[in-house]
């Protein structure tokens, strides 16, 4: 019997000792992970893993990339997992947010205004989509799928018409630019001086932002009245409606947050990487994989899924670039085989 299958009460009855046990286990794991990162490496390890700098950078990049994937996928998991609305235009929302953020930043000269514009514009579009499209197709998965695929194709061509095919790069403001030195020694020079790892500051900020948003989302869903209404609406909308709550309003809010997060991720991601046609499909695919691996409708699940996929992509890219793409899908296939509902999904 695996731990996840145990009834909740069993865990709670002897909770303290078990919790302490877990804490110890996690500390041990953390120490094992931290040791190779902070300690200097012997030559043989450097030879196997190219160099300490390459390995630690790949891990760091994987974690920060996971932050970006989480931002996109958390919106997707809200809409797809909680509301059972299949929105395959989610990638288009990401790309549109990026383009809008770019144009607004160019126009106003302030990056933060661009980020806000990306979120707000897409939240508005999300509400429109919920009112115009999804409200009419409630409970009809197949039609939702087809209609949203249609929307994504039309949106891709419209964006190509407006912004053209060239690659845009959002310039980050000065205070986010440059690299920071981390207290991680990657090598020692012949004169004994230690070489520290440098890492782009912007990526660390994206990661911090993703963590803050993730925690806020989880708190909102699990600890607030609105979150309670959302969860109630998913389980039994008729009963929620009967108790005097405007269900349509609740779902419109969820959709707005989901789409707004995609737009926000677009601007943030477009500053770290770049904006070009085709990004929509890429992030839709990434969100799908993250949500399938992590479990539908679960915010912690999206975080775990994003972490796995981000790390797999970066480590694959450095150590076996030709077959690195496969790694992501191996993770997905293994998850589907062992836990079809996803790592944190409800069975």
């Amino acid at each position, binding site marked *: 019997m695996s731990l996840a299958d145990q009834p909740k009460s069993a865990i709670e009855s002897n909770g303290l000792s078990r919790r302490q046990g877990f804490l110890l286990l996690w500390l041990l794991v953390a120490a094992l992970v931290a040791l190779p990162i902070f300690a200097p490496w012997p030559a043989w390890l450097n030879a196997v893993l*190219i*160099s300490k*700098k*390459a390995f630690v*950078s*790949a891990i760091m*990049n*994987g974690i920060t*990339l996971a932050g970006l994937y989480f931002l996109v996928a958390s919106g997707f998991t809200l809409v797809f997992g909680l509301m059972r609305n299949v929105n395959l235009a989610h990638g288009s929302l990401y790309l549109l947010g990026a383009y809008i953020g770019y144009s607004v930043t160019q126009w106003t000269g302030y990056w933060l205004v661009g980020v806000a514009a990306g979120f707000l514009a897409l939240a508005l579009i999300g509400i429109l989509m919920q009112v115009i499209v999804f409200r009419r197709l409630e409970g009809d998965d197949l039609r939702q799928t087809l209609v949203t695929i249609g929307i994504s194709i039309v949106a891709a061509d419209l964006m*190509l018409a407006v912004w*053209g*095919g*060239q*690659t*845009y*790069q*959002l*310039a980050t403001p000065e205070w986010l*630019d*440059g*690299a920071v030195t981390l207290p991680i020694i990657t*090598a020692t020079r012949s004169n004994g001086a230690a070489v520290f790892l*440098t890492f*782009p500051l*912007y*990526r660390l900020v994206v990661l911090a932002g993703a963590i803050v948003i993730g925690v806020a989302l989880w708190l909102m869903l699990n600890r607030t009245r609105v979150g309670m209404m959302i969860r109630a609406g998913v389980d039994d909308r008729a009963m929620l409606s009967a108790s005097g709550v405007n269900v349509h309003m609740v779902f419109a809010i969820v959709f707005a947050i989901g789409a707004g997060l995609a737009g926000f991720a677009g601007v943030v991601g477009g500053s770290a*990487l*770049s904006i*070009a*046609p*085709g990004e929509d499909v*890429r992030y839709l695919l990434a969100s799908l994989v993250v949500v399938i691996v992590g479990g539908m409708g679960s915010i912690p699940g999206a975080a775990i899924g994003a972490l796995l996929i981000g790390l797999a*992509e*970066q*480590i694959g*890219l*450095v150590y076996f*670039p*030709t077959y*690195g*793409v496969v790694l992501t899908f191996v993770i997905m296939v293994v998850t589907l085989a062992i836990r079809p509902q996803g790592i944190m999904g409800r069975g």
Partner: protein
Amino acid sequence: MKIHRRALLALAVATAFTAPGFAFAADDTIKIGLLATFEGPFTVLGEDGERGAMTAIGEAGGMVGGKKIEIVKGSSDASPDSAVRAARKLVEQDGVKVLIGPLSGDEGIAVKDYAKTQPGVTFINGSSAAQDTTFRDPAENFFRFSTDGAQWMAGLGTYAYNDKGYKTVATVAEDYSFPYTQVFGFMAEFCKAGGKVPSKSWVPIGNKDYSSVIAAIPDNVDAIYVALGGADAVNFLTQYQQSGGSAPLIGGSITVDQTVLTAQGKLRDVLVGTPSAGPTADTNDAPAWKAFVEEYKKQPGAFPSPSLFAHAYYVNTKAALIALDEVKDDLSDGGKAFREALAKVSFDSPTGKVSLDANRNGIADIFLTEVSEGADGTLLNKLIKVVPQVNQTLGIPEDQFRALGAVSRDNPSCS
């Protein structure tokens, strides 16, 4: 009777759909298929390729051999199967007998293989530049007037070693046939001069996040050779700048092309001063090049200076038009006369004399360049030196060149 009539109608409709072959012969227009990447990561490149082809057709007044030119466009996304699909559509549905394209390396090899199944159709390359499109197992009906990626590197390896003083270089390139060819061309000279290449990174095409790849590059190399195209190049260069990279760069032909130099962002800082080589140079002041730039700029959406894709499509289209003119659009007998004329075409292009070798691959001048900032702030490839009439074996006797083996991830090697 009624059924009979309906059957006749159906037959007539069916004929109408399959008619292009007939209409072609009767009409006074000639259909030319134009295959380029109008979707996917190389969209900008494909659009500029089209501008190049249209420049050549514009110069001819839209007429060739007394017939009006009708362009039928096919779109691919830089993957070989999409290129073959688009080529099949152009040949088998639209009935074109002359096809110009494709754009990207692997596409070229795939279309060359498809060409073997369509002996009645003449294929003329767009800008694809993998070596094995024409060098190993070539197709009788595939012609490439725009040279290959190894030829484009002529002069660069020697220049990097002797003039720039780089002794060790790491390479970062996309993982397919064209960058293999480019790295081969660079290393052929660089290793011969005495240089070492201790580390080669091959990344999947369309990769966005290069920070881990950048971190894996050894710290002790003198320079980094980058052969990435379009959005991939923009991403790499920006992230290289962000990560505080300090090693100087050496550019593959499409890495410092106008399609990348016109991108917005901070990548400009790391690009200025980057040496490269390719079939064009923006500051070439030969009258023929200047005239070509003027013609090119008449196309909608043109860059400040034509990209090498515009140039390659222009050269190939121009050669096709010269041969078509010579045979008065005679494409009978599987285009036999046209092909014979095409094999003999030798003309003065905007970048000097172009002719074909026995494998139907181009021999042309190559330009050694360096990225510099123009008077109006645009980035340009400044001409350093012209390497005249480079052939596909890079001046090495063919049997010796063949013995070097097919280009791949591991060939050549000089670590």
